[in-house]
């Protein structure tokens, strides 16, 4: 009896928990992304564009 109750309840509850949890996280992240400051965005998106300042050509002699 115990296992049947647990099993059945789990079946009906888990999909709901899963969906609302995911939906909540999604909404929170969308809100956060939209309200991020423009200056922060500009700084972050420029990070990969920084070039190496020079190259050490003696790498194989180290």
């Amino acid at each position, binding site marked *: 009896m115990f296992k049947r109750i647990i099993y059945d309840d789990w079946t009906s509850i888990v999909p709901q928990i*899963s*969906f609302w949890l995911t939906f909540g996280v999604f909404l929170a992240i969308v809100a956060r*992304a939209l309200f991020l400051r423009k200056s922060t965005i500009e700084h972050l998106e420029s990070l*990969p*564009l920084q070039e190496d300042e020079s*190259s*050490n*050509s003696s790498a194989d002699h180290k």
Partner: protein
Amino acid sequence: MNTNNNTHTTTIEYDDDSVRKFMIASIFWGLVGMSAGVLIAFQLNYWQMNGKFLEWITFGWLKSEGVEFLTFGRLRPLHTNAAIFAFVGNMMFAGIYYSTQRLCRVRMASDLLSKINFWGWQFIIVCAAITLPAGFTRGKEYAELIWPINILVAVIWLIFGANFFWTLGKRNEKSLYVGLWFYIATIVTITMLYVVNHLSIPTSFTHSYPLFGGVQDALVQWWYGHNAVAFFLTTPMLGIMYYFVPKSVNRPVYSYRLSIIHFWSLVFIYIWAGPHHLLNTSLPEWLQSLGMIFSLMLWAPSWAGMLNGLLTLRGAWDKLLTDPIVKFFAAAVTFYGMATFEGPLLSIKAVNALSHYTDWTVGHVHSGTLGWNGFLAAGMFYWLAPRLWNTKLYSNAMANAHFWLGMVGILLYVASMWVAGITQGLMLSATAEGGTILQYPNFLDTLQAIRPVMLFRAIGGSLYLLGFALMAINIWKTARSGNPVNGTVEVPVDEDSHQTAGDKRFFAFLNAPVIYALLIVTFMLVTIFGEGAVFLFGVLMTIFFSVAAIAHFEVSKAAWSEWYGKLLDHGFAFSVLTIIAAAIGGAIQIIPTVTMQRADNIEGRIQIPYTPLELAGRDIYVSEGCYNCHSQMIRTLVPEVMRYGDYSHLGESIYNHPFQWGSKRTGPDLAREGGLRSNDWHYWHMLNPRDVSPGSNMPNYPWLFEKETKVSQLPRKINVMRMLGVPYPIDLSEEEIQAQVDEQAAEIVASLAEKGAFVEPEKEIVALIAYLQKLGSYRETTDEVATAE
């Protein structure tokens, strides 16, 4: 260290030597893995490619009906492991090592750890390349490596993780770029997945039984298997995409905001989707529904990522005509979009009923690995090589040729697999006479129908391999024309603030929004699982903390809006939240299955444990990789029941460590094979399948008639099985095991001799026949006589 009026600066030289080594290793192992793939593709069309061909190419000097180290069942795991862990693994390390140092403006934290990471990983690959063809396997897809190698993988992975997080800790750039988030997700999630799915109890240095069995093992395996695709073949690639695609066109990512949504949605949703590999099976229905729904939800974040990648190329489309790097990146991101469109489509139960166990899935996987991973790797290597050796790319024409050979190869491959999969799926489900009989009752008819397209697949794969070989030559020539160089950067040193920031990082995730969220979720769970007063308490506290959170937010809006910004600066906090996001889905799916779907709780049919000889036969079945072509799961679909018998019940494989439900049927399902055919049929079939099944593409297994069953290992194996909950008698002595083996083997040998098939009782074929004849045996849990066994 240089000094000016206000700040000290220091010149940092990046460790690009590790990047070069990983890149070369990736190209080398890529060639090996893809060559193995082409070989096994041809094996499916020409059974002679399983070893008989050696007789031809040596003009009869080497007599062989089949070579055990070269069969499809043993080489397919080698191909998949080489493609995933050797090719993509090394490529991933190259990309992460290069970009992490630049994004953090710091050298990798420890050269020693980098070297251990590189050489340790290559040692693992060599071990895999030796053990898999030798038949040492755990019998679970993409998790075949034996337990000592598993430990080695875990150690090397943790060393890589330690080096990575140490580097983050030492970084000279405060903010974490989105690419680094994807790397963090990769490291923490793969650690969790790998450890859980590889929990085993050893029976010897080369053999172990997984901790989970039957449906539990199936769920854990595909939670791992699916997320190996997600977090080994996707998230690190996305990190690489977010770094190298902007670099290649020298413009920022299209939308950084979209990348935030992409990351969190992907990490949070991906982990739930594993059960879509087990649709229409005996996996509980609620898990199948969860797997399907979350797979469909994956469409959104995946396409967000694809669009973000493609739109980063805005304003630089003209480069598609001239720059092979941009070509590869544009095609790779497009394949990412196509593969992630197809994946959710295949996860719809109705579509999956047709596609599962067919070549459609194989085509889907290869559009991801060849198109997304392979092309992204090529673009990255062509971009890196001139910079790592301070020279120009040897030949743009060769790179362009690589692109078109690869593109035609992939399209030929994927289109062939679509046609093969849909054709075979439809033929297997086709019925006649008003749906009362199967239209193609002989499985081999459906195989013969797709042979021509299977050949096109092999040709497509060969073209892709040829293109990849051109890249190997091109990169080699490029490296020869230049000198290895390490990039450098000048960074300011701010000694005071560095220490302070480090102290704060550890507790950065303990801020008001996170604490409120944790409290609300906790009390929601109390509400769900509590009764009476506990339930009421849970409801009240959930409401209280929800109202308190809103009030707190209204009072301190400015401070709250900063919390995510702070998170971007703190690697540890970010990692903790990523672990939580990735762990939730797995925990909710696996914990109830592991605690509830046990043999003790099974109602209805339950598997009868194997006799010692049958258990030995099962280990041979696993060792030969039979699961690569034969499933043991009759799905809850009418055509399957008509073809193979009653659908598989959950309890019928509950003692199987590992489960053998399979994922592809090149041959028929074997869940109810026991008693279906005579012992001598199996004897002749294993000796030469075409003698009893004309047109079969299965290899010959002559060595099963020469090698002896390892009976001496059985007492230890049975002991481990007992530890895992399989009801073997406690007082089963070695002598009794031997006596049982001898008795059952003698019966089989006698029945074979009656039909003119002669073999000694200690040979492996006898144990294998014993196992095959046991498949599908069960008892009812209400059967009092059987329960007393």
